[in-house]
C-alpha cells in the first residue's frame, strides 16, 4: 500500500519542531516518531519504500558511515536540509549554584577516563565525585548529570562539542598517555552521568525532583521550560538566540532533516512538510518555530531550493483555463461589436444580419478551437512533467509495465516499470481481433447489400444498422464478461488450451461486434459512392454482378473502404468500457489471445484512482497514456479523412 502521509523519525530534540510543522503545514497528517537521531537515521537508511521514513530528523549531521550505509541500502537520492540551530544547554537548578563552566571542566566531570590527578602517565577511571574537585569556585555538590542516551543526537553532539575538544587538547599536550582518542566521547558509567531518556521535557521534570542534579538538553527545552531551570554558561558564553545563531555559544549545533527525494513524488504533502520549516510564518519574527525554541539558520533556503534536485514542474497558472475561456468569450464579444460597428455602414438589413451572424459564428468557432487547445495543453503539461522523471526511451521502449509496484517500491523511476509497449500491444491485439471479426462480416453484408439487395430493402437495412450502432458500449462489455469470456474459456478448455475468463479474444470479439454495424454502413456507403455509370457499362457489356464488383466497383471504392477500415481501427483503439470489463488489467508482453491483457484506455481508467495531486507520477500517467493514444489515433483519422476527401465526400455523421 502506498502511504498517504509523511513518515518522519529521529531526533527527540527535533521532535517538537517536526510535530509543529506537521500540524500547521500538513494539517496534522504526518506521523512523527521520536526515537533518537541515530535510530531515526538507521531506519531511514534501510532503503526506499513506504516502510521506511520519508524524513529523518537529526540533531546532528549524518556521519559518513551512516551516509554510506544509506547509499548501500539504496535509500538515495536524499537531500540534507539545515533547518535551524540548537544549543546544548547545561541546565541547573538554582540550588546547585552552577552558573558557568568550561568545557574542560565538563570533560573532567563526565568523561569515562581522565588524566590521573596524581600525575601518573596513564589515564584513569574518572575519580571526581564533586564539582569543587574539578574547579575552584564550583559548588561542593555531587556530580550528577542527567542526559540523553546513546541513541540521542543530543548526546552525540554533547560528546562531540563539550567533551571531545577538551579531551583531544589534553591528549595533544600529553601524548604519552596512550589513550585512544576515539574513546574521547565516552562518558562515565559510574552513576555520575545518568542516561535519562530521550524526552527532554521529562528530564527537566526529573531535575526538579533532584535539585542537585544537572541536565543536558536542547535549547528548545530551555525555552519551553524557562523559569524552571537556568542555563549554565559555557566557556563564558551563555546560550541565547543570538549566541547560538552566531555560533558563539560553544555547544551550538545545527539541526538537520534528511529527505528522500524519490519519496517527494509519491508521498502527498511531503514537500509541504519540508518547506514548512522555512515558511515565514514559522521562522519569521513571532514565528511559531521560534516560539518553540528553534534558532533559524542565518539564511533559510527558499522553497525552490528545497525541491532542487527534483526537476521543477511545468505547470500552468491555475487561472489559465479561466483566462483562455475569458479571452475566447471576449473574442466573441469583440467580433460581435466590431461586426456591428462595421455593419452600421452597410445599408440593407439583410446584409447586416448576415454579417453579424457570420461574425458570431466565427467567434463561436474560435471559442471551440480555444477550448480544444486547452484540452491539448491539459494533456501536455502532466506529460512533460512525467518525462522529466521517467526517460522517454524507457517509456517507449520498455517491455515491463507495472506502475503500481514501481510506485510501491518508489524505486527505479525511469527504469522499465513504465514501459508502455505491453499496453500498446494489448490495444493493438484487441483492435486486430476486433477487425478480424468485423471486417469479413461487414464486407460480406455491404457487398450483398450493394449488388444483390433491392434499394428499398437496403434502405431499411441501413436504418437498422444505424440504430444498432447506437447501442451503448457497456452492453457489449457486459456481454463479453458474462457470455463471451466464459464461452471462450470453455471452448479453449475443450480444445485443451488454457484460456483466461478475461481474455484478449473475448474483448476483441466484443469490440468487433460493436464495430460491425457502423463498419457495414460505411463500407456500403463507400461502394455506393462509386458512380453508377461505370458499373452499368460493365453490366451492359455482359459482366456478371460479381465481375462488375471486382473489376470496376471495388477498385474505385478503395479510398472509401480504406477510410472505413481506418476509422474502425481508431475506434477500436479508443474503446474503453468493453476492454475495461472484458480484458482485465494485466500487462503482458505476449501475443497469446487466450491470455489476459490490458489496453491504453483501460490503464488510463485504472490509474485514475487514488491521489490526484498533479505532481504525483501516478496521476500524470493517465495523461501521458492519453496523449500517447491521441498521437496514435490522430494520424489514422487524418489519413481516413484524406481518403474520404479523395473520393469527394463528406464523412459520415456517425462518430
Amino acid at each position, binding site marked *: 500500500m502506498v502511504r498517504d502521509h509523511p513518515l518522519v523519525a529521529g531526533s527527540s530534540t527535533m521532535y517538537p519542531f517536526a510535530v509543529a510543522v506537521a500540524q500547521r503545514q500538513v494539517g496534522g497528517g504526518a506521523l512523527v516518531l521520536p526515537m533518537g537521531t541515530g535510530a531515526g537515521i538507521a531506519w531511514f537508511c534501510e532503503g526506499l519504500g513506504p516502510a521506511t521514513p520519508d524524513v529523518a530528523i537529526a540533531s546532528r549531521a549524518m556521519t559518513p558511515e551512516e551516509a554510506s550505509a544509506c547509499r548501500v541500502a539504496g535509500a538515495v537520492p536524499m537531500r540534507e536540509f539545515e533547518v535551524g540551530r540548537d544549543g546544548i544547554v547545561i541546565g541547573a537548578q538554582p540550588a546547585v549554584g552552577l552558573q558557568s563552566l568550561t568545557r574542560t571542566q565538563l570533560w573532567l566531570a563526565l568523561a569515562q577516563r581522565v588524566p590521573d590527578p596524581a600525575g601518573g602517565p596513564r589515564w584513569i577511571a574518572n575519580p571526581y565525585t564533586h564539582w569543587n574537585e574539578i574547579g575552584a569556585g564550583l559548588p561542593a555538590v555531587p556530580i550528577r548529570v542527567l542526559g540523553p542516551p546513546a541513541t540521542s543526537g543530543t548526546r552525540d553532539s554533547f560528546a562531540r562539542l563539550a567533551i571531545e575538544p577538551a579531551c583531544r587538547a589534553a591528549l595533544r599536550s600529553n601524548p604519552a598517555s596512550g589513550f585512544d582518542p576515539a574513546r574521547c566521547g565516552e562518558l562515565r558509567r559510574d552513576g555520575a552521568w545518568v542516561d535519562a531518556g530521550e524526552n527532554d521535557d521529562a528530564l527537566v521534570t526529573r531535575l526538579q525532583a533532584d535539585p542537585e542534579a544537572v541536565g543536558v538538553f536542547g535549547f528548545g527545552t530551555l525555552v519551553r521550560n524557562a523559569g524552571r531551570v537556568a542555563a549554565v554558561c559555557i566557556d563564558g558564553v551563555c546560550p541565547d538566540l543570538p549566541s547560538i545563531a552566531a555560533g558563539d555559544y560553544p555547544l551550538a549545533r545545527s539541526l538537520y532533516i534528511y529527505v528522500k527525494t524519490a519519496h517527494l513524488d509519491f508521498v502527498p504533502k511531503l514537500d509541504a512538510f519540508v518547506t514548512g520549516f522555512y515558511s515565514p510564518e514559522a521562522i519569521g519574527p513571532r514565528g511559531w518555530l521560534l516560539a518553540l525554541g528553534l534558532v533559524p539558520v542565518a539564511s533559510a533556503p527558499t522553497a525552490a531550493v528545497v525541491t532542487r534536485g527534483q526537476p521543477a514542474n511545468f505547470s500552468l497558472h491555475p487561472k489559465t483555463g479561466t483566462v483562455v475561456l475569458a479571452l475566447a468569450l471576449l473574442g466573441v464579444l469583440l467580433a460581435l461589436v466590431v461586426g456591428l460597428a462595421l455593419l452600421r455602414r452597410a445599408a440593407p438589413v439583410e446584409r447586416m444580419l448576415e454579417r453579424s451572424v457570420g461574425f458570431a459564428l466565427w467567434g463561436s468557432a474560435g471559442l471551440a478551437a480555444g477550448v480544444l487547445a486547452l484540452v491539448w495543453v491539459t494533456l501536455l503539461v502532466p506529460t512533460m512533467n512525467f518525462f522529466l522523471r521517467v526517460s522517454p526511451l524507457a517509456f517507449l521502449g520498455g517491455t515491463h509495465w507495472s506502475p503500481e509496484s514501481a510506485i510501491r517500491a518508489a524505486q527505479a523511476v525511469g527504469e522499465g516499470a513504465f514501459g508502455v509497449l505491453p499496453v500498446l500491444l494489448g490495444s493493438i491485439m484487441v483492435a486486430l481481433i476486433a477487425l478480424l471479426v468485423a471486417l469479413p462480416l461487414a464486407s460480406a453484408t455491404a457487398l450483398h447489400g450493394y449488388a*444483390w*439487395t*433491392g*434499394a*428499398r430493402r437496403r434502405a431499411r437495412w441501413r436504418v437498422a444498422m444505424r440504430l444498432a450502432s447506437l447501442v451503448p458500449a457497456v452492453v457489449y462489455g457486459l456481454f463479453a464478461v458474462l457470455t463471451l469470456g466464459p464461452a471462450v474459456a470453455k471452448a479453449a478448455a475443450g480444445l485443451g488450451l488454457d484460456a483466461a475468463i478475461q481474455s484478449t479474444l473475448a474483448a476483441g470479439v466484443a469490440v468487433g461486434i460493436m464495430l460491425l454495424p457502423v463498419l457495414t454502413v460505411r463500407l456500403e456507403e463507400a461502394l455506393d459512392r462509386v*458512380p453508377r*455509370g*461505370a458499373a*452499368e*457499362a*460493365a*453490366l*451492359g*457489356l*455482359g*459482366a*456478371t454482378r460479381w*465481375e462488375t464488383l471486382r*473489376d*470496376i466497383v471495388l*477498385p*474505385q471504392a478503395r479510398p472509401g473502404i480504406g477510410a472505413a477500415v481506418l476509422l474502425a481501427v481508431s475506434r477500436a483503439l479508443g474503446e474503453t468500457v468493453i476492454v475495461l470489463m472484458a480484458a482485465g488489467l494485466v500487462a503482458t508482453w505476449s501475443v497469446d489471445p487466450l491470455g489476459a491483457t490490458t489496453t491504453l484506455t483501460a490503464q488510463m481508467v485504472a490509474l485514475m484512482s487514488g491521489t490526484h495531486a498533479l505532481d504525483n507520477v501516478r496521476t500524470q500517467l493517465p495523461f501521458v497514456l492519453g496523449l500517447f493514444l491521441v498521437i496514435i489515433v490522430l494520424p489514422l483519422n487524418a489519413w481516413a479523412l484524406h481518403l474520404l476527401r479523395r473520393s469527394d465526400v463528406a464523412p459520415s455523421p456517425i462518430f
Partner: protein
Amino acid sequence: MNSVAQQAPGDTTGAIEPTNYHFSKSPDGPALDVRSYNLWYGEAQALYDIDMEIQKGLVTAMIGPSGCGKSTLLRSLNRMNDLVDNLKVSGEIIVNDENICKPAIDVIALRKRMGMVFQKPNPFAMSIYENVVYPLRVDGVRNRKVLDETCERALRGAALWNEAKDRLTESALGLSGGQQQRLCIARAIASDPEILLMDEPCSALDPIATAKIEELIDELKGHYTIVIVTHNMQQAARVSDNTAFMYLGRLIEYGNTETVFTNPKAKRTSDYVTGRFG
C-alpha cells in the same frame, strides 16, 4: 430483387395503328422483334403494347418527348431493366428466334451479344487498352495477341485508333468527352456484337464530337444493327433509316425516317416533328 414477372397482356389500347407502321425493311430481316411488350415499374405502367421490328443492319432511331419510354424500351432490349426493383413485363422480344423475356434466358450472354453506349461517357478507371479489351477479359480471353488485335480493330472501328494508339496504356479518364464516348463505343463493339444500343450518346458532347459520333454511326451501320435513342430530332433525321416516335409509353409511329419527318402519318407525330410540342 429483379422479379421480372410475366403478366397476361393488359392494356392493349397502346397498340400502334397499322397505318403508322411503315418502316423500311432490311434485306436481312429483323434483328429484334418486339411483340406486345408491356412494362410496369411497380404499379405504374411505362410501356403499352409495343410492337416493333428492328431491322438488321439499319439504324433505327427512337424519338419522343421526355418520359415517353424510349430509354425504357431500349434498356429492355438487353434486359438492363432487370436492375430495377419491382419490374413487371409482359409480351415478347424475339432475338435470333428466341424470346429474351423468358426468365430462363442467360442475361449475361444476351448482353454480350449487344453493345450498349450510355448518355454520359463512362470509361472504366483503367488504361485505354484495358477498357477496350474488358469485354474479352470478361469472356475469359487471355491471349495477348487476340486482345491486341481486338483492341486495334475496335478502336479503328470507333475512329479512335489514330488518337489513341500512342496512349494505350494511359488512363482512359485522360481523354476528352468525345474521345471517351468513342472509347465506350469501341468497348461496346470489341466483342463484335450484332446489335448496338445507344442511349442518347451525344447529349453530353459538344457539336464537333457529336458530328464525329454521327459519322461513326454512319460507318458502323451495315455491319451492325444500331438502335439509337435521341432527343435531337435533327440527329435522328441525319443518321437513321427508320424512326420510331413514342409518346407516353406508346409507339405512335414507326416508319422510314424520311417519311416520318416529311410526311408523318399520325397527327401527333407531325405535331412533334414540327415542334408544336416537345
